[in-house]
């Protein structure tokens, strides 16, 4: 991990279309180290899509994604993590789920066990280590997904509406995790439709509407003086699409 940082990440002219329909158009942005970037916008604006393109789960139709360090794909992937709206847990224990990405990275058994145990403890899951992951509650599974991301010490983590299906206590735990990642120097890119959550967490806001990036500004600027009419309407709670 001594190599140069992969950040900033530069998106340039990024477009994505499927079945003849343009879902994301000409997005250009730059993500710097240790930032909390909240991706906002109405449903269908392309928030999840943007995260998946950055993470490399989808390939853009046009445009480029450039990382600061020119590393092989595998290495780039290892320095990123993603927590999905509904994380997929492997049919094994919680501990084994956290050890899994370490094993893929070729880390030895003893160190794996050590790091995974620590990550579980960090997210308050130590007592559930030996429980099968699939029988955990939704909130516990989301924390487990965060632990599974945490254990890799990513430079950037994407969170795709991670709290949309959770109760307030579990939501609080996820927000706490965002702060922990931030404190550890990880850039957080998180989509949400919860404006107050965005206010609590954001350093920067990306506002997407109908596949276009309308604003990428510091959070205070966005919430106090949105530049676009769509953002003003969105903040005012009007229906925007």
């Amino acid at each position, binding site marked *: 991990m001594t190599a140069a940082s992969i950040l900033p990440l530069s998106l340039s002219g990024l477009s994505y279309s499927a079945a003849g329909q343009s879902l994301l158009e000409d997005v250009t942005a730059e993500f710097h180290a240790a930032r909390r970037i909240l991706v906002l916008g109405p449903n269908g604006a392309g928030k999840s899509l943007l995260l*998946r393109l950055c993470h490399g789960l989808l390939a853009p139709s046009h445009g480029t994604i450039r990382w600061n360090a020119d590393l092989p794909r*595998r290495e780039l*992937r290892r320095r990123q993590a993603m927590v*999905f709206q509904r994380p*997929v847990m492997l*049919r*094994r224990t919680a501990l084994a789920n956290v050890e*899994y990405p370490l094993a*893929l990275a070729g880390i030895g058994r003893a160190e794996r066990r050590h790091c995974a145990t620590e990550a579980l403890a960090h997210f308050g899951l130590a007592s559930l280590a030996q429980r099968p992951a*699939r029988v955990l509650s939704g909130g516990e599974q989301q924390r487990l997904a965060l632990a599974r991301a945490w254990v890799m010490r990513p430079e950037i983590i994407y969170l795709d509406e991670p709290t949309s299906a959770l109760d307030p206590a579990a939501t609080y735990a996820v927000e706490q995790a965002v702060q922990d990642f931030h404190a550890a120097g990880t850039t957080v890119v998180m989509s949400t439709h919860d404006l107050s959550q965005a206010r609590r967490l954001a350093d920067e806001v990306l506002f997407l509407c109908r596949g276009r990036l309308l604003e990428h500004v510091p959070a205070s600027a966005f919430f106090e003086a949105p530049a676009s009419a769509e953002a003003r309407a969105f903040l005012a709670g009007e229906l925007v699409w």
Partner: protein
Amino acid sequence: MTDFSAALSLAGSLVFQLDHRLIAIVLLSLRVSLLAVALASVFGLPLGATVALARFPGRNAIVLVLNAFMGLPPVVVGLTIYLLLSRAGPLGPLGMLFTPTAMVVAQMVLILPIIAALTRQVVEDLWEEYSEQLRSLGCGRAQAVPTLLWDGRYRLATVILAGFGRASAEVGAVIIVGGNVAGFTRTMTTAIALETSRGDLPLAMALGLILITLTIAVNGVIQLVSQHARRGMG
């Protein structure tokens, strides 16, 4: 119905007398089929998962062949193995023809496509569910093979049972390569075929009932174990 009641009572008395020839036949049937299933699984599970996940030219052709070979005619498999193992054939010096080993080979060839084809389907379905998550965790398609085989283990248990069912019910191949030698390569199915030829229909039917009962028992045990484990694993 007198045929069936005669068969039923005969089956009962065979079982309760613990007829030593019956026990030998049952044990041989079980070990031939179980070994064939074990070997076919060792090869078939990774093969099926690899075909499910790999992308290469000709993949569709392989899927087609696997699916079609699920219905391989046992007699043809038996004949092919027979010609290979015959002293006049390429593997003749091994002296395997008319031995239990030859029967294991024949049954393995029969069920390997079944296990591989069904595994491919199971793993492809799982990949649909897991692919984004696994790729995000840094898991490539090659590494996903063992991961998905393990995560699909309960569904794959059913796949293996399907293979076992086919192996233990099969007669066409084992009778050709095993020769139905009394006390050596006579299995439940070949014994049933023999007793049918002898016109001893009640005995044949009684053996049939015992075979079906055994099959149910084996399936029941595996299903219980699997359900128990699945409840634990979610």
